[in-house]
């Protein structure tokens, strides 16, 4: 674990004393002067210099840090959001082109996307760590240039919690990660309490893409819906984000349809979809783009996302008796 300010005294003892360090210790005078400066300044840097943190990322690769990174590049919006939620927004020095929350990250250099990140500009920023998703080719290149990369992938709520924990460990704020996650859970419970009882167990079709791709029960979106007491129109065995036959939706007749505003507006024009009872009864959640982005980012704003879902559910016309 990284040492906190409250654990500085412990941090003075090197975790793995090297021969050279013990020589310095026996050097006596110099060390005690150093020690005094340490005490006087509260020396957060000395504690960091001795702390070592081994971070295991989602590729199974362990990266060791001598000190919490001070310059961070994030190549994924949800990771950008997580870093900021953990109170380390000011350590970000650049993001991918899609990161847009919180507002202050919009002023940072935009370094391309996951697949076409701009290597030269990233290296020029001299980041202590680059946060990315797995399966980005950019990682190999950055690592060969000596840049440390942590790959984190979030597909469900447990992943999001784990990602926050790993980031908390990395940033030297493990307690903060727990607090953020507790906040997500609290907000989700509060949102669940707002869902009208009549909506409990209603089967939702949440559209990710008009192809159509849906959010299945095992995706983080599906899990959030379950936390709100809702069902899912898609069977779990189809996977987290299955591509569906449009006919399947018509046959399944979901009780509630959720999608981005433009998609919902388009749905009645899809062949056969005008027969969807949810569309006819106006039991749809058409999210404006900002809210929709909030819903599809697996990160610290999932509590907020649950609230947005509950807000829509609270204003739906009541389900008709079947």
């Amino acid at each position, binding site marked *: 674990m990284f040492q906190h300010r409250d654990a500085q005294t412990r941090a003075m003892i090197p975790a793995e004393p090297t021969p050279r360090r013990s020589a310095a210790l026996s050097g006596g005078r110099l060390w005690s002067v150093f020690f005094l400066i340490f005490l006087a300044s509260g020396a957060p840097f000395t504690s960091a210099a001795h702390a070592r943190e081994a971070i295991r990322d989602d590729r199974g690769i362990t990266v060791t840090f001598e000190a919490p990174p001070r310059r961070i590049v994030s190549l994924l919006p949800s990771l950008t959001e997580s870093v900021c939620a953990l109170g380390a927004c000011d350590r970000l020095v650049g993001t991918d082109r899609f990161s847009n929350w919180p507002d202050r990250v919009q002023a940072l250099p935009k370094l391309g996307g996951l*697949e076409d990140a*701009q290597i030269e500009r990233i290296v020029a920023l001299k980041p202590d760590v680059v946060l990315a998703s797995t399966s980005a080719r950019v990682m190999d290149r950055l690592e060969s240039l000596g840049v440390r990369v942590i790959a984190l992938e979030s597909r469900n709520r447990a992943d999001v919690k784990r990602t926050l924990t790993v980031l908390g460990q990395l940033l030297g704020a493990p307690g903060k990660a727990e607090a953020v996650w507790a906040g997500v859970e609290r907000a989700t419970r509060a949102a669940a309490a707002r869902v009208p009882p009549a909506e409990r167990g209603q089967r939702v079709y949440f559209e990710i893409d008009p192809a159509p791709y849906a959010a299945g029960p095992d995706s983080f979106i599906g899990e959030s819906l379950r936390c709100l007491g809702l069902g899912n129109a898609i069977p779990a065995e189809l996977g987290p984000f299955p591509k569906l036959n449009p006919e399947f939706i018509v046959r399944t007749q979901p009780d509630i349809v959720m999608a981005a505003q433009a998609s919902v507006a388009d749905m009645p024009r899809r062949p056969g979809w005008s027969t969807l009872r949810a569309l006819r009864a106006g039991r749809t959640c058409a999210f404006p783009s900002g809210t929709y982005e909030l819903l599809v980012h697996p990160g610290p704003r999932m509590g907020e996302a649950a609230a947005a879902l509950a807000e829509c559910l609270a204003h739906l016309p009541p389900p008709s008796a079947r």
Partner: protein
Amino acid sequence: MTSDGERRLRLAFGLAVGSVVIAAAGMAAGGDGWSPAGLFRALANADGRFIVLQIRAPRTLGAWLTGALLGLSGAAAQGLFRNPLADPYLLGSASGAVLGVVLVLAAAALGGHVVSVATAGAIARFGLVGAAFVGALLGVLLTLSLARGAQETMHLLLAGVVVGVLLTAASDLVTSAAPDALRGKQAFLLGSTGFLGWQSCAFMALGLAVTLPAAWRLARVLDALTLGTETAASLGLALGRLRIALVVAIAFATALAVSQAGLIAFVGLIAPHLVRRFAPATHGYTLLAGAAAGGLLLLTADVLARTVIAPQEVPVGVLTAILGGGYLIWLLRRRRAA
């Protein structure tokens, strides 16, 4: 009126000088746009030197090498098929490479779901570069086996088209099951010179050092083929074997370029055209000059990609397609006017 020989010399000189000049410009084209002063500033400190020597230099050289491999295989393919519209991707290498890449991307996405996490990890370690390389070679192998060798050019061409369609369908099938792989596939289809390092350069330089002399030796076969298959056979050439050797050289060069930089459009098609138009020659010259022209073309596109909307970048494949397409349109209009 200049003689063909003189034109060939002038073209060779122009390609050499152009490559050096644009490469120098490339060294000054950084993440913040084109700035020779910036280059000197960067070289004055260690961080700047690191960026110039470890990122900008291999990228610049790598762009040239990728273009050269594509130009060489394009010139060889056009000679082999006796068709000026042939390109190095025609033999199934492009679709094979895409399938390889998509399988790796999908394995990462499906990890823990369809395939086990350990399998996904093993595939990921193999890497996109390896997958693209093997995929491209397997694609060509499939084409060769479908055409039962390279005896009949038309069979080879048809088999290449069929393999292209089939493997593209296969990778589409994989991406519909694992939509997460789509973004990576898209990036691979556009091509990029941004990830080329010294290691990539070493691979490609080695590949060029092997394929260039091989193609040079086979150039006489291509010359003989221009007289027609029967005449070529009557000259005592073992056409089947030599054609297969050519196909292997094309496949190897293309697979190397594609695995390092993705599917960069049009370079392999246009570079030999430019050479033939400017200096008609036997295939030996066309192959060498085609490689140099491909290198210069992609190098120029890469430098433009870095500078036109700096600090953002245009995908280099988009630029080569615009440049190549623009050239073809210009060619068509000229022909019509004449």
